[in-house]
């Protein structure tokens, strides 16, 4: 016997969660784009797409975030902090790769410096993931020690029923249990069969790739130039990535007053590492692409023991010149370590 949430109860659930003070978010598709956004009713959800175009990162680490307002007066500088918006929320229908992405970035944002914006939003959010029953050619979770039904980063994992009329509920954390207590009486016991999870074939052997990346001799390999020759140096792979977390601090305003903001930045941009002197340690696009791969599969796991990639495949799916992590690691896996 398992606990089941039937789809026809979803509107009731939304009402209960709202009554409990939670804002409900989920995957939403418009004419132009799909993303995670606030919803009003069950019919607003998009459970059909393989995954939203935009990653879940947007809800925790927005492209632009005001940090403080400053005013320079004759004898003093006055500052006023912007605190992250308060509000408990439930993100219903997250993809397991996106939820895993949050867990990956938790280690970074909760490291030596505690990023209050990230941490507060994480603490106030309940992540309810739905195991994937569909995948496309770009999905690669299975190549990264994850799976279409990984529970990493989720507070609750839902497994779709074979009849596509509901989900088997697996509560994973106290935060998840608390949110589902509010809808406890809407759940039913049952033994309905669950749908098989999506088939995501393994695309490369990660250990082989990591061994190659860790060999210092390969840092200057001509492979980097070859693989990135067509890279046009835009930041779309990094900005759609659920785990890319680099940002820049910018002051917007005039000499006397303004707002300090935290804005996304990308290792794809030449300006990212440009020194004041004009020297750029990553002067070429190949050095920048190498950095992105090394960071995700060598440096980041070296510090946090987890790869900075959850296998959503967005980088490859939307690349204007059809590049991406999959192609690069597939090629690396065929090279001599």
């Amino acid at each position: 016997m398992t606990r089941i949430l039937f789809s026809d109860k979803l509107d009731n659930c939304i009402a209960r969660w709202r009554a409990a003070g939670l804002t409900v978010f989920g995957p939403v598709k418009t004419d132009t784009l799909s993303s995670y956004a606030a919803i009003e009713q069950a019919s607003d959800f998009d459970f059909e797409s393989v995954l939203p175009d935009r990653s879940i990162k947007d809800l925790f680490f927005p492209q632009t975030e005001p940090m403080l307002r400053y005013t320079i007066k004759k004898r003093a500088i006055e500052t006023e902090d912007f605190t992250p918006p308060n509000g408990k929320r439930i993100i219903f229908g997250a993809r397991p790769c996106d939820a895993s992405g949050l867990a990956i970035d938790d280690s970074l944002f909760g490291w030596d410096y505690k990023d209050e914006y990230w941490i507060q939003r994480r603490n106030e959010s309940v992540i309810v993931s739905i195991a994937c029953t569909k995948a496309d050619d770009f999905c690669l979770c299975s190549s990264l020690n994850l799976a279409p039904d990984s529970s990493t980063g989720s507070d609750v994992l839902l497994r779709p029923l074979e009849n596509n009329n509901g989900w088997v509920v697996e509560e994973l954390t106290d935060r998840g249990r608390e949110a589902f207590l509010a809808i406890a009486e809407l759940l039913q016991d049952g033994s309905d069969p669950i749908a098989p999870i999506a088939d995501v074939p393994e695309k490369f052997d990660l250990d082989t790739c990591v061994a190659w990346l860790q060999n210092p001799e390969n840092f200057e390999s001509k492979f980097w130039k070859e693989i990135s020759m067509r890279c046009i140096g835009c930041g779309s792979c990094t900005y759609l990535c659920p785990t890319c977390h680099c940002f820049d601090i910018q002051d917007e305003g005039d000499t006397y007053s303004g707002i300090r903001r935290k804005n996304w930045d990308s290792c794809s941009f030449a300006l990212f590492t440009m020194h004041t002197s004009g020297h750029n340690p990553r002067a070429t696009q190949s050095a920048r692409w190498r950095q992105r791969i090394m960071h995700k599969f060598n440096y980041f796991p070296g510090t946090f023991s987890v790869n900075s990639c959850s296998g959503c495949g967005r980088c490859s799916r939307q690349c204007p010149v059809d590049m991406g992590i999959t192609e690069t690691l597939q090629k690396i896996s065929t090279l001599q370590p």
Partner: protein
Amino acid sequence: MITQEKYRTRVKELLANNSVKMVIGYKQGSTADRRRPLFVRSFEEADELVLDSNCIGNLAGYLVTEGLLSDEKRVGIFLRPEGIRSINILAAESQLNTEQIIIFGFDTSGREVKALQGEQAGDFSGLIDSLKEKPPEKSSDALLYRIDQMNTEERFAFWKDEFSRCIKCYACRQACPMCYCRRCIVDSNQPQWINTSSHTLGNFEWNIVRAFHLAGRCVGCGNCDRACPVNIPLRFINARMAQEVFESFDHYAGTSQTQEPVLASFNKDDSETFIL
């Protein structure tokens, strides 16, 4: 297939007699319909060349890659008519010397690919003149028609909504053959002319500045529009600017390598209606 085979043979011929150091073309991408840029330097790579109706990206921007043409060796490139216009503009703006460029021109009508006659930029002037004769069709697209019918407030609201999705990834800029500046205005941070934030002001600043910089230079290849990861219909902004420039100054971008840039030249007969 015939055109593809013919061109593969020609590419090998040029590589064999050292007439080109590289040919920029297309190969099979990660899914059935995707084609990705290919840099051909060997016969094996030449055999990977694909030419069909899915080869839609304008490759001209790769020619201004720093250092590519500085050894004065020749480079071949596969281009549609709008790509050839891009080459003419780049030459007119002193970014390249067309004598260094061997063009494998092609066009698609329906599913068939046909080769364009000629290999040097100048060989295609007749073709481009004939394109100018039939200027961009007004409102051939339903959405463009809808935008045209809007009043100023409605149009502002429309673009405000579209730009609200902008994430400042600059894929539009990077994909554009005309955005070759070594340091773009958004990369200037002392002072920071353009906000890097993607709030309403920052998004308008960026997208409008880019539109103005492309007035009279955009050939409508669609690279920006296809590259945009948040599906902003950028082609409409640039198509509209091209239409304005055509109607006001009889300027059709990229007709020749000696064409004067429309915003960098003037004529005493130019319309002055915009001067208040």
